[in-house]
């Protein structure tokens, strides 16, 4: 097996035994990027020299028998929405094209402390707004399984990088499904942790009450290993929860006995691709065969999720994005007439169409006379959605559902139909509205050879159970071992 197809634990033991050096590993991934990223477009910034330097440092530490972190020598990619000191952090936006953060995000601090090797920053929908990575100001990322299709989004760069063997591990952010949906489209595993489990300090905000960083990898063990490093309290994030972090990797192989899997009829709504539906039902059968109980649950308000979400998320986004005004950092227009025009022109030039739509929508929903009818109404519906889920978890341990209504769609297919694009988030965004953890994992392939993901959702802080449940399924199936055939670059 080649280095870039190996798992995290395989690489860790190969480096520990001296069969491979961290530099060998870093080089293999950098070569893979060199060879294939021209076609995939997963990276916005590759820190070639920095990665090799860090790898050499890990080798040196190992040689001198210094203590090594949990991710020592493992090459990873970071979504460009996470601040990295002195490394470009653009959020896929023209407005931050030349922004160099003077500080590291908390997760980046943790990665460095864990001796991970940071390969670079991955492409994304601008400010994480989108489900296809087509909304990047810089380039389109393509799905490694079929380059005429999108990798999903907004963490499409991270998902594609992992799927194409250009990064072992990757970090994404998930505000309405932005980790889980691209993971599903690219045939990898991705997890959105409970709100507050991972520090948001240094995560450039899209919608603060919904955003959460999470791990992506080709298997559940990789996701567990990365989460173990990312999770934990951070005094710099007021919404970070102070609660011990389990060693997810340690219990991963232990199956859950008496597992109760919930299936909600609302998760098989109109517009669900029959192949996706049957993958989910097949997954339920796998769990049944492992002794799990499959229970019908009902989520009566889930059909209002998209509407509530597309009022709450843009409202917070409009406010979070007010800071990009061409004064203290970011793009400033060259031509303008006075201060107000300087603001408007800079923002008009700096933001792409999807970001503008959401800024408009959010400002509208919060403006005088509309607040109660839109924003406040949406928050009340949010409570009802949360109550539905709380009730469901009284009778089941995890909810099994589709991730997205369809496998990866074509580049350009939905880009001019914002509402259709929004509706494709229906199965993922209730976890964000309710703050719950969710994991997406490979659950099959379409007749056209595209990966299909399945989703497990759990109650707050049930990450350990979700990972164990996911691993139960993974052990019984081989979907996660499949790799896309990458064309050889010219």
């Amino acid at each position, binding site marked *: 097996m080649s280095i870039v197809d190996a798992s995290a634990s395989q690489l860790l033991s190969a480096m520990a035994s001296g069969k491979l050096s961290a530099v060998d590993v870093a080089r293999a991934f950098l070569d893979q990027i060199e060879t294939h990223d021209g076609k995939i477009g997963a990276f916005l910034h590759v820190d070639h020299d920095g990665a090799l330097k860090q790898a050499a440092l890990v080798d040196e530490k190992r040689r001198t028998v210094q203590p090594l972190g949990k991710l020592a020598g493992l090459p990873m990619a970071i979504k460009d929405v996470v601040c990295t000191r002195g490394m470009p952090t653009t959020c896929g936006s023209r407005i931050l094209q*030349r*922004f*160099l953060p*003077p500080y590291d995000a908390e997760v980046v601090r943790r990665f460095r402390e864990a001796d991970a090797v940071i390969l670079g920053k991955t492409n994304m929908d601008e400010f994480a707004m989108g489900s296809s990575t087509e909304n990047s100001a810089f380039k389109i990322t393509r799905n490694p399984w079929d380059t005429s299709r999108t990798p999903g989004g907004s963490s499409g760069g991270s998902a594609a990088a992992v799927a194409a063997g250009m990064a072992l591990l990757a970090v994404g952010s998930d505000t309405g499904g932005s980790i889980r949906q691209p993971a599903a489209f690219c045939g990898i595993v991705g997890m959105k942790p409970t*709100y*507050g489990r991972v520090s948001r300090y240094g995560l450039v905000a899209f919608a603060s*009450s*919904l955003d959460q960083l999470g791990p992506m990898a080709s298997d559940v063990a990789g996701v567990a290993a990365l989460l173990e490093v990312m999770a934990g309290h951070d*005094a710099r994030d*007021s*919404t970070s*929860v102070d609660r011990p972090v389990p060693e997810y990797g340690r219990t991963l192989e232990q199956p859950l006995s008496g597992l109760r899997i919930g299936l909600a009829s609302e998760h098989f709504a109109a517009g669900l691709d029959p192949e996706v539906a049957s993958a989910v039902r097949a997954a339920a059968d796998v769990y049944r065969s492992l002794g799990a109980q499959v229970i019908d649950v009902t989520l009566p*308000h889930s059909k*209002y999720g998209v*509407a*509530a979400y*597309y009022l709450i998320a843009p409202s917070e986004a*409009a406010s979070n994005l*007010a800071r990009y*005004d061409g*004064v203290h*950092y*970011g*793009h*400033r227009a060259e031509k*303008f007439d*006075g*201060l*107000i*025009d300087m*603001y*408007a022109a800079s*923002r008009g*030039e700096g933001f792409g*169409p999807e970001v*503008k*739509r959401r*800024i*408009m*929508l*959010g*400002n*509208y929903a919060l*403006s005088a006379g509309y607040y109660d*009818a839109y924003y*406040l109404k*949406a*928050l*009340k*519906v*949010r*409570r*009802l959605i*949360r109550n539905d889920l709380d009730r469901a978890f009284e009778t089941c341990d995890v909810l099994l559902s589709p991730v997205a209504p369809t496998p990866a769609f074509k580049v350009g297919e939905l880009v001019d139909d*914002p*509402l259709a694009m929004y509706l494709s988030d229906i199965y993922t965004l209730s976890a*964000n*509205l309710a*703050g*719950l953890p969710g994991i997406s994992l490979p659950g099959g392939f379409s007749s056209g050879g595209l990966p299909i993901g399945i989703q497990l959702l759990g109650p707050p802080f049930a990450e350990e159970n979700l990972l164990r449940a996911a691993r139960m399924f993974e052990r019984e199936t081989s979907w996660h071992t499949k790799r896309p055939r990458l064309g050889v670059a010219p």
Partner: protein
Amino acid sequence: MTARLTRDDVAKVALLGRLKLSADELERMTSQLGRVLEYVDILNEVDTEPVQPLAHPIELANVFRDDIERECLPREEALANAPKTDGRFFVVPAILDGN
């Protein structure tokens, strides 16, 4: 619940959000936002009369830090990303009354 969104409404919100939109963009925005707003009207099917809003998924309270000083950024770093400075201040077009 809502009257049809007009171009004027959209222009007003664009000023509020400090977004310069071309005539074309304004046109497209009016119809796209209009469709989204029509869609979100389905929320009116839900009786939310007795429901408390949920602004935040985790209902934490009283998160504080101690009043302890931390090092500030050197001025060069504070100004490093600014589009225009004089080396000491951020520089902006003249601020007039009414801005």
